[in-house]
Structure formats: C-alpha cells, structure tokens
C-alpha cells in the first residue's frame, strides 16, 4: 500500500507520497505555482484521476484534472488529444460555473442576505470543495462560493448547478461568514445514492433524499448566539461535517462554536463539546476503522484564530464526543499560533489509521498511530488550505 497526500495551499499544490511505512515522504510541487489551490481530491474508483480547484481573485476559477496521479494536469476538454480531434473542438467550459436561473427550476433565485441584512446578488467566486462520485470517475460535485452545488458528469468539461438547493425557500436568508458564503462540505451517503449532505457558512447543513432535486435544512438542535434567533432554521455557521462510511446516519459537526453530533441523519443534533478547551475550530474527522473515534483541533476563538495558549493540540474522542483527550506528542507546545482550516484534515485507511492535517503556517503533520504521536512530513509550505489523503493499492 502507498499513501498520497494532496495538499492545496495559498500558492500552489503539493503532492506528498510515501510507501505504507509512512516514514519517508517525497514532495512534488508546487503545481500551479502562485495560484490558490482550494482543494484537490481523487476519484475513489480511479485514484489516478484527481481533480483540483485552482483559483485567483484576479483571473477566476480554473478546474484542473490529472489522469496520472498528479504527474501531469490539464483543464478538462483542452488536452492536446482533444485539441487535435476533428470533432472535439474545445468548448473551454471547464472553468464555467453559471448559476441556473432558468424558469424550469421554478424559482430562479437572485439574492441572498448580505452582511448588513440587505439582499445581495448571488455572485460566483470560487470552488471550495470537489467531491468525486464513489462509482463514476467522470462525475464530481463542486461546492462553490457564493453557496451553490454544481455537478459534472463529463469529467469536468462542463458544470451544471443543482438548483434545488439554492432555490429552496430559505435561500434569501443565507448569509456569508467571515470567509465568504461558501458551500464547503459535501458528503455522499455510501449506502443510499439518493442522499447527500452539504454544509454552508453561514446557512447551515442541508440534506437531499432525491439525489439533489430537493433539499431541506437539517439544523434542529444547533444553537448560535451570534444570530438574532439562536435556534433559527438557517443562519448557522457550520464549519465542517464528517461521516464514517459504515454509519451514514451519524454525522459529526464542528460549528463556529460547538462540536455537535446527530444519529438520525441530521433530524436532530446534540452538543458533544464537553471538556474541550475551546469548542471553536474548523476541521473534524473520523478514524477510518473506529466510527466513534473523532478528531478536532480546538482554536481559541473566532477573533483569535490560533490554538489556546499557543499549544497546537489535536483532541480525540473515542466515545463519539463528550470525552476528549489532548494529543500533544510531536506537536509544538509553545509559541504556536497557526490555524487549521476546515478542509485541511484527512485520514488514511491503513492499520493503524493515519491522521493528517495542514496548518496556515505551512506544516503538514501526520500521525501513523491514530493520533498518539505526530511528525511534520513537510514544513514551510505556503499556508495550507486543504489536505486529502489517498490510500493506494
């Protein structure tokens, strides 16, 4: 078995590879030097197929695709082979994310709530998260800012919105969080292809039970003091949701404040923060083999985006929440003021389970013993935006 770690940073993409021992790492990159790489993820059915979201405030959104495990990349539909094809003149639409305002959607939606409470037009900015289908390498979901869900079924050559989400009744009440109004989490139910979960900052979590046609908010039990109605149906700043594939009805959430859990696919949430030093944070993830073992990285507060007391600590609960232990071995325990962003934690499926996370200071830490101890597998990269791990045969 081999491990490939896909690291998106503020100034390019890096690919880290190791054999199953996970001791010696080879670093490849920067790919797309100078561009923000918000996220990269490989197809579960074809791990050599990797999708990447390359973005720039100047030049917009670029979708990149590799078919050889990250050695070479192309914008889908513009490879040399396709450019030469007499019938395949490139459409150049792989970078095109246009909101669906057609009459067929029933309710074309053009505004959402702005920071000051006024309505604001929906404006596409970037792709935050790419979620490849579990059974088709050409099908990928994209979560974007301003919040919406897109899908490609042709390997990234063209993208189309699933307008039922943005067109749901609550859309005009959605509002941006500090990082923008982003759809950052996409979870595909491995047991029920009709069911998906998504999360938006700051609207909350949503579920579809008809493969994306219709959606409903699943935020009952969330309590957010920073909104006028703390228990509102939408408006919660959900930072991340995680699921173990063996138990898709159980979800774990890191909210702006509070770590939450549901066991009924989001119908009701309960808080499981308990003895955490701070229940503010961004990522949350689940052990590959233990569905009740979860990980968070507590951050001091929403105005101080660094660990409490300058000590970088991952917290692990082996009881699905409430009872947390600090994991410190190998992590800096003084003068550490980095953050760990919401898409910057991932796990491998080796035994023992490997846990990986990247920091805004450019380190990627790995544990090969389910969090008991940690080592940096690369240092001094640009600020890390995302980390995804592939366990390769």
């Amino acid at each position, binding site marked *: 078995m081999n491990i490939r770690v896909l690291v998106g940073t*503020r100034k390019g993409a890096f690919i880290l590879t190791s054999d199953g021992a996970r001791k010696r790492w080879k670093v490849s990159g920067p790919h*797309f*030097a*100078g*561009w923000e790489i918000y996220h990269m993820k490989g197809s579960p059915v074809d791990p050599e197929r990797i999708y990447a979201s390359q973005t*720039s*405030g*100047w*030049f*917009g*959104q*670029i979708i990149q695709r590799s078919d050889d495990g990250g050695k070479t990349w192309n*914008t889908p*539909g*513009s490879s040399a082979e396709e*450019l030469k094809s007499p019938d395949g003149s*490139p*459409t*150049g*639409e*792989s*970078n*095109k994310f*246009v909101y669906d305002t057609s009459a067929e959607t029933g309710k074309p939606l053009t505004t959402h709530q702005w920071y000051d409470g006024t309505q604001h037009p929906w404006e596409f900015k970037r792709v935050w998260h790419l979620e490849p289908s579990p059974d088709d390498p050409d099908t990928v979901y994209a979560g974007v800012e301003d919040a919406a869900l897109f899908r490609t079924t042709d390997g990234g050559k063209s993208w189309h919105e699933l307008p039922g989400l943005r067109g749901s009744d609550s859309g005009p009440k959605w509002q941006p969080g500090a990082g923008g109004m982003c759809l950052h989490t996409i979870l595909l139910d491995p047991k029920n292809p009709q069911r998906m979960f998504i999360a938006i900052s700051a609207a909350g979590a949503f579920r579809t039970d008809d493969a994306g046609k219709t959606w409903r908010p699943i935020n009952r039990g969330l309590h957010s003091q920073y909104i006028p109605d703390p228990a509102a149906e939408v408006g919660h700043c959900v930072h991340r949701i995680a699921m173990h594939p063996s138990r898709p009805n159980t979800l774990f959430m890191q909210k702006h404040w509070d770590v939450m859990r549901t066991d009924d696919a989001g119908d009701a949430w309960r808080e499981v923060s308990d003895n955490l030093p701070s229940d503010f944070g961004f990522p949350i993830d689940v052990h590959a083999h233990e569905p009740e073992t979860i990980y968070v990285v507590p951050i001091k507060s929403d105005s101080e985006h660094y660990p409490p007391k300058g000590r970088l600590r991952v917290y692990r609960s082996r009881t699905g929440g409430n009872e947390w232990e600090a994991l410190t071995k190998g992590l800096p325990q003084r003068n550490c003021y980095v953050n760990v962003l919401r898409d910057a934690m991932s796990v491998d499926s080796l035994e023992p389970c490997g846990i990986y996370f990247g920091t805004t200071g450019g380190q990627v830490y790995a544990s090969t013993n389910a969090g008991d101890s940690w080592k940096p597998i690369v240092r001094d990269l640009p600020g890390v935006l995302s980390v995804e791990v592939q366990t390769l045969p």
Partner: protein
Amino acid sequence: MIRVVLPPHLRTLARVDGEVELEVAGAVTQRSVLDALETCYPMLRGTMRDHVSQLRRPLVRFFACGEDLSHEPPDAALPDAIAQGSEPFLVIGAIAGG
C-alpha cells in the same frame, strides 16, 4: 501576426513563455484578439472576461502603445501598431495583494 503579452499567472496556465503570437481574421479589436487567444488557449476562457457577459474581469486591464484601453469598447479598432505586430497587446493583472 498579433503579439500578446500575458501576465505571469496566465502564462503559467497557458504553458507559454514570453509573448504569444496570433492570427486574427478581420478587424483587430479587443474582442477579436481575445477570441483568437481563447481559441488557441481554451484554458484561458473566463480568466480575462466573464464567461457569460464577456465583460473584462475587474482586476484585469488591457494596454497597448502606452495607452490604457481597458475602458474602450471591445469592438473598437486597436492601434495600427498592434494590428501590424510592431507593438504587443498587453494583458495586465492589477498589482494588489498577495
């Protein structure tokens, strides 16, 4: 032959070094130059102009012969020096941030 200078990020994206040379059929305008550029380098579509409106992206500017042409109509003729290839058409990313 029309000469175009891209900013570094777009040269990286298009995998070109230095200037790009293009054949442009008909009138040489911002629109026809950018159309030709995007036809040769489809990965550039959407990076300089909005996919739908075809309006210039806010932090992108167009210069030629020492003049800022960013706010000129897209179908206005570019200077003769551009059409004759003696001067390049410059695509500039605003100097801001990061």
